Structure formats: structure tokens, C-alpha cells
């Protein structure tokens, strides 16, 4: 059976097409002006990647904060459940999951069948979300994608004292003016967001493997900083930002709508 999962996030809409438990196509589109248009665009992209047309797909489920904007979905599943289902499918040993998106971060603990046991969420403050890194990258006149490389070149550990993303931006600008090496500032920034994430991790506890998913998990520097903060290994599955969409596609195959 061929199904599709649409994960409509704060910044991007991601779609995967699955056939009998295997991902055969995926694509993303920036949410930009309209999550509705973006869902349509990402879906078209995923279909063409899979070499399929709309009528080949049996069922489509949507998830994420903009799931209601996906007009062509047959059902929906909550973001947390979709991520739990998705990670359990791609990484069955994962027990503690760090999910950092553009505007929200959560850490949850799951059992062997993908059932959520405990959860800690931050959706109130940008300091623990992907937009924090984007703001800091802007202040540093670099790109988020280049942060991991800069992190590796850091020679000294510095602390960003401001908690708030708005204040941290001024602090970073002051550090630049004070001629602090860019790699050290980048490491400070990544350690700051890792520290906030680690406090969520400690709230739910760690057991078994720790996985990182969501767009921020693509940043290897962040993952290293988080490992340093937690003192343990953090595993990132392939395509960490598509886990929610995979969960939605799996839910579509199950056929049970969880609203």
C-alpha cells in the first residue's frame, strides 16, 4: 500500500511517500506565505521523486502545527504521536527523543512500541528552538549550515550569558566587536541551546538510546554540543527532519485517525 505523510511545521512543510514500510520519495517546501500552498508544492515534489501520480497514493495523513492547512489529507495525527511512531520505525532502540524544530522543542521518552511515556516541551521561548540558531547566525554573518564546521575549529569554550534570543543577539554582536574568534562564539551559541535542551532531557530522563530529530538535528555542531552537555551519545537517524512525516505516512497505512 502506498501512503503519504505531510508534516506542516512553522518553517517548512515536509512530505514523504511510503510503500509497504519503505520511504520511496520525499520533498520539502518552505511554509512561507501559505502553509496550504507549501503542502501542495511539497506533495508534488515527493510524488515526482517517487515517480508516482496522485491516484497511486491510497491515503494521506497530515501532522504538525499546520496540519489543518493540508486540504488534501484524509486524516491527521498529533505531532508528538507522529514523531514517536516515526522514530520507533526508523530507530527501534531509541527511548529518549530530542525533537527540535524551528519554533518549538520537545523531549519525550517512548517504550519499545513507540508509546509515549513522558514529555517535556518548550514552545514559549525561542532560546531553545531553531530560530535561536538562525538569529545567532545572522548576528555572526554566517549561515546555520556552516556552524558545525566552525564549531570544530573552536579552541576555547566561552559562555553566552543571555538566555533570551533577543539579548543573546546583542551579546554575540559585542563578542564580535571584542574580536572573539568566530568558531568560539559559534561553539558558545551551540552550547547555549544544547544546555537548554539538556535541561528538558533531564526532566524526562534518559534510558536506552538517545535520538535527535527535527530540523535542528541536521546541525552536527548542535549534536556534538548536546553530547558534551549530556555526557552521552546522541544518535541522529538519516533524514531527522522527516521523522514526523514518516510517522504520519505510517499512521495513514494503519488507517486510524488520531485527532
Amino acid at each position, binding site marked *: 500500500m502506498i501512503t503519504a505523510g505531510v508534516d506542516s511545521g512553522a518553517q517548512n512543510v515536509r512530505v514523504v511517500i511510503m510503500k509497504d514500510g519503505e520511504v520511496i520519495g520525499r520533498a520539502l517546501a518552505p511554509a512561507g506565505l501559505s502553509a496550504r500552498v507549501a503542502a501542495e508544492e511539497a506533495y508534488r515534489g515527493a510524488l515526482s521523486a517517487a515517480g508516482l501520480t496522485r491516484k497511486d497514493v491510497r491515503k494521506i495523513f497530515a501532522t504538525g502545527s499546520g496540519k489543518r492547512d493540508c486540504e488534501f489529507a484524509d486524516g491527521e495525527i498529533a505531532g508528538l504521536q507522529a514523531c514517536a511512531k516515526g522514530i520507533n520505525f526508523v530507530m527501534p532502540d531509541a527511548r529518549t527523543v530530542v525533537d527540535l524544530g524551528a519554533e518549538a522543542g520537545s523531549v519525550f521518552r517512548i517504550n519499545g512500541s513507540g508509546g509515549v511515556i513522558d514529555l517535556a516541551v518548550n514552545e514559549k*521561548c525561542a532560546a531553545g528552538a531553531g530560530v535561536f540558531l538562525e538569529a545567532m547566525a545572522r548576528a555572526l554573518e554566517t549561515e546555520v549550515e556552516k556552524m558545525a564546521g566552525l564549531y570544530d575549529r573552536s579552541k576555547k569554550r566561552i559562555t553566552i550569558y543571555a538566555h*533570551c534570543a533577543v539579548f543573546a543577539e546583542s551579546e554575540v554582536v559585542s563578542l564580535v566587536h571584542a574580536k572573539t574568534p568566530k568558531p568560539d562564539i559559534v561553539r558558545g551559541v551551540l552550547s547555549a541551546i544544547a544546555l537548554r535542551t539538556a535541561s528538558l532531557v533531564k526532566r524526562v530522563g534518559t534510558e536506552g538510546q538517545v535520538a535527535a530529530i527535527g530540523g535542528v538535528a541536521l546541525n552536527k555542531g548542535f549534536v556534538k554540543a548536546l553530547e558534551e552537555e549530556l555526557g552521552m551519545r546522541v544518535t541522529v537517524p538519516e533524514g531527522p527532519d522527516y521523522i514526523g512525516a514518516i510517522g504520519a505516512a505510517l499512521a495513514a497505512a494503519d488507517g486510524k485517525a488520531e485527532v
Partner: protein
Amino acid sequence: MPGKPEFWRWPESRWRNPEIDWTKGGVITCGIDVGSISTECVIMIDGELYSYGSVRTGSGSSDSAVKAFHKAALHTGLTPENIDFTVGTGYGRVNVPFGNRAITEIACHARGANWMYGPRVRTVLDMGGQDCKVIKIDEKGKVIAFLMNDKCAAGTGRGMEVFADLLLIPVQEVGETSLKVEEDPPPVNSTCVVFAKSEATKLLRAGWTKEKVLAAYCSSMAQRVVSLIERIGVEEDFAVTGGIAKNRGVVKRVTKKLGIEACDTKWHDEKYASKGFPFDTQIAGAAGAALFAKTLAEKEGRTNEGKLRI
């Protein structure tokens, strides 16, 4: 950046009392409030307001302190050597190069508010560039209790600057602009300034006017400040200091939510009021520091009387 207007950039200012000649004697004291966004310097002669300057804080606290002093002392011939006693306050208080003592901004704002608004003030709300504090004071301007938020940009001047830039409205006009709505819309939902910004962008796309978006933001900021005030309790008279005190859009909404009036922004001291001396709520901390400096100068006998002036 040349060519690009900076809507967050508020005007720097200075003022000098035309009636005082500092060379004629008296204890000259100076208070410098090095804040995270602005730095103010107040110079007093025998406890009377002589001059002040307000500048944007640069990357170094000590440079900013010097800059503010020169702004206040411009065309007066005063140099730091002429000052009998200087008190530094604000987050960069220990970095004032010619400072004789550092005193917390809580104590200085309390004393400054008492001096500016008068002895009936019991609650001071100081809305600064990167923090917001509620201070309960007695009739002498002494601190009884305080609460502050300095962790988060929501409810601070910095957050307001972010919105001024987003909506391309000069920050000093934000308050009035936000009042140009017939009825207040529901407040912006997000507390975090970063999220509030993306929320505002969505509202603009949905066809809201700038006035309406600012009304929603000022209202959410007021809500945040009110929740801080309610934790400590408000007692009248209620006075507002700091840069945001100039934003009527926030102050009006704060007092409306609290159900009380704020003190008029005018001098308690009749002679200052009648002469039309400018009442700048941003100098309260530096004024408090200059008053402390006078007390300390007299106590420590450092009134520089033997020193040649000129």
C-alpha cells in the same frame, strides 16, 4: 548602515540648567547609569539638577560612561576632575572609569523616582532597555522590596525596538500609533519577542493595520508587566520610569489593567515644574546616583573645596 533608516534608534539627548554656574562653587556630584541599551549621566550642584546627557550604550561600559559624561558636560567646561564624587549604577556600574562608588540601579531608581515624582510614590515601575523592575519604596525613596525580569526581552525596551524595526515606525512614535485604534484587539499571543514577531508578520499578512498590530503588542507587553507588578502588589502613588515610561501605549494599558492611575510625568519640585525643566523619565537612575553621590561626598568630606575650579 548608511541609507537604511533605523526605526529602533531613539534620539540621544542632553539638557543644561541655564540658571546655575558651576564655577561659583557648591558640591558637584555626578551619577552615571550605564544600562544595557542607554547610558545616562546626571550632574548636580549641591543636589540641584545642573545637566544631563543620554546616549546609546556602545560595546564597552567605560566608553559609554565617558560618552554620557561628555554629553552632559558639553559646553560647560566641566571635566571629570571637577567632580567631587561620582556614583556609577546600572549593569555597567563597576566600569565607570572615574566612579568613586557603585550602587545598584534598584536603589538609584528608587531614590531618583522619589526625587522626581515626590515622596508620595510607593511603587516604581522601571521599564528599561533590557529589564523591567517593580520597586516598592518608602517616603524617603528607600527600597522596601523589588522584583525584576532581566532574562527575557518580552516587556522591555529592546522588544519594543524589535517591533519598531519590523513595522518601520520610529520607536518613539510606537505608543501614540498603538492608540490609534477604536478598540484594542486581543493581545499578541506569544510571550517571546521572537515568536511575537512572526505572529505579527502573520497578522499583517492577514490584513491587520500597523496600528492594530502595535496595539496588540503593547497590550501583550502591558499584560506581561502587570503580571510582574501583581506578584509584588501595587500601592499608590504609582510612578513609571525608564525609556518605556515615554510610551503612552504601554503605560495607559498597564494602568488600565491595574485599575489605577500613574503619576503625571511632571516634577514634584514646584520650582522645576514652573520653570519648565524637561522631565525625562530615563534619567531617574542617574539622578538617584547623583543624589547618593552628594550624601557620600559630604559624609566622606570629599567636597573638593580647596581645589581650583576653572
